């Protein structure tokens, strides 16, 4: 049984982490916030150089794994670019990317990115994004939609799964930063990491992060092999990802203390830029409701039930 991404995909992910660092690392999101019109200029070049737009995640498993790996790397730096959404573009539409949106107040984190977007609601209706208007922090725009067709059901699983990989990258980084912080910061004459109360909070975060990692890989396999239940699997992943994010960001903020809210601290940026991923198209309760309605009495159908 293969539980991890392929060696090639993992290596691609590592290359992407290095490339994003060279392109500006943590500064990228801060510069993009100051001027969202620079998002493409800040991140588009490095993504193209990496060959990200040559990937066909709907085409083959190698591409799919590489796409997941690069989304995770993008999350690690809170890269100010909708990589997962671009990679989710439907195979049968001439667009640059796909946003999964709610019926109410359809939105996407696309301010400042020039691209031709399609949007799909969770009932499978597809739309063209005719216009977008900035509507809040973290590059979120409200979308004006023009109906296209009802063929989007097949597009949803991937478009829900890849953003979870981005969120996973954010959780990787939040944990890494927090472990570094509690190791360095001293109180009462010893590093914070020496306190069991601190250690146990770290384990709460890590169990969630590690659990999300294995679920994300499983779901990728489900999506890549076209399992009938792929959309349910993707919703289950999304639900788990949102829960994990809630725990990890709560723990990592708490253990950073006041400095974790400061602009000079990367955690603060990760935390605020995780918000669109966690709220759009649906938050954790609505995702859980939708999943339980969809699976009804059959539960989650796995390989072993």
């Amino acid at each position, binding site marked *: *049984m*293969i*539980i*991890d991404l392929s060696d090639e995909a993992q290596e691609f992910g590592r290359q992407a982490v290095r490339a994003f660092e060279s392109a500006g690392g943590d500064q990228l999101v801060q510069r993009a916030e100051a001027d969202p019109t620079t998002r493409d200029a800040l991140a588009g070049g490095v993504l193209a150089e990496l060959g990200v737009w040559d990937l066909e995640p709907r085409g083959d498993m190698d591409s799919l794994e590489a796409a997941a790996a690069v989304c995770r790397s993008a999350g690690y730096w809170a890269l100010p670019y909708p990589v997962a959404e671009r990679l989710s573009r439907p195979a049968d539409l001439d667009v640059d990317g796909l946003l999964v949106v709610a019926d109410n107040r359809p939105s996407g984190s696309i301010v400042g990115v020039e691209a031709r977007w399609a949007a799909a609601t969770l009932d499978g209706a597809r739309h063209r994004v005719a216009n977008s208007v900035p509507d809040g922090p973290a590059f979120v725009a409200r979308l004006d939609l023009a109906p296209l067709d009802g063929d989007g059901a097949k597009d949803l699983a991937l478009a829900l799964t890849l953003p979870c990989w981005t969120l996973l990258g954010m959780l990787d980084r939040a*944990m890494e930063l927090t*472990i*570094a912080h*509690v*190791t360095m910061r001293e109180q009462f004459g010893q590093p914070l*990491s020496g306190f*069991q109360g601190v*250690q*146990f909070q*770290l*384990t709460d975060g*890590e*169990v969630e992060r*590690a*659990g*999300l990692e*294995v*679920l994300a*890989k*499983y779901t990728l396999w489900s999506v890549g092999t076209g399992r009938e239940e792929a959309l349910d699997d993707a919703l*289950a992943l999304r*639900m*788990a990802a949102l*829960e994990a994010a809630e725990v990890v960001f709560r723990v990592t903020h708490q253990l950073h203390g006041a400095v974790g809210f400061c602009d000079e601290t990367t955690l603060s940026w990760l935390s605020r830029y995780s918000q669109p991923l966690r709220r759009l198209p649906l938050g954790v*309760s609505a995702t*859980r*409701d939708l*999943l*339980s309605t969809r*699976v*009804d*009495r*059959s*539960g*989650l159908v*796995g*390989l*072993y*039930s």
Partner: protein
Amino acid sequence: MSQEATALRQDLRDLVKKHVPEDFLGAFTNNPDDLEVAQAFCRLLAKRGLLCMSWPEEFGGRGSSAWEQTVVREEMWAHHEPRGAQYMGVNWVGPILMRHGTLEQQRRHLPPIASGEVIWCQGFSEPEAGSDLASLRTSATRDGDGWRINGQKIWTSYATMAQWCFLLARTSRGEKKQRGLTIFLVPMSDPAITVRPIGCLMGPHHLNEVFFDDLRVTEADVLGTVDDGWSIVGDVLAFERVGIARYARCERLLQLAPEALGDRWANLPAELRGRWVRMLTHCRRARLLAYRLVALQSAGQVKPTDSAAYRIAVTKLDQDSAEVLMEIAAAAGTEPEAELFRLEVEDHWRYSQASTVSSGSIEMQRILLSRTLLAAR
């Protein structure tokens, strides 16, 4: 998983269906028939070469893959462990004897385990030595050509039904408390051993006190090297690393719930059905964490601390799912299948209360995991 593992899963399910009564809730009840079901099932598995299939061929096993062993763990636990207490002999007593036992000890103890005839208990915990096991006080002192053992063990599962005890005792005192400990293989039939059952919410046989009053054992009953028993304890824990496949029972009961409730399922509050699907997702997560561990183990890459995140996730799942299932079961009707579901859920809830305490408390797992996280920096 391989085709062999998938076929094995079906074989085991067929055997359980045919040879284990539908209302079986484990061997540890006040009804002696339940123990006999488990004993007979072990003999049946042994006859079919399925009881010790993970053992090396030279010891009568089939050298089965780690994935086949995983399937056995899952299917047995999902169906209330129809091997009863014998899983311990198969999972770790036998393999430890293969690694550390003398030829004579292997000849004496391995065949009864392999044929499904013998129950072992583990004499580790003491009133003053739980998570801090190396602080134990039960002593073994030299007495001529043998040893004399005095002391008390506690929380000893299955001591009332066991024929043998895998006993850890102090044989000397040194600078480090982990030194000076020795493993003894002792017969529970000896009159110098007294077992006192402790009533508990999991039901009978789970918790006992065991008293050793001048128990006389010989040099031949020592396992491994005198004073070096702690290294064997480490091996025992390694065999137990993946542990019980708790997620398998959680998942079976959660999947069974809609069928058991019938038409009443639709009347459950949407919030409760939401918690139900959340628990199913957590089952999947725990299963995948277990599989990751098995994959690492198969590749020889697993470290003692690798299991901690899984153990924390699966024991919390056990308890969280039990709470959700108890709420669902309260809405079940009076039909026979609903009544059986209610009994199974009640049993699951009782067992789950101990899951964050037994076989290494969740606090110990947290300490292990945090050490790993901090050391990796």
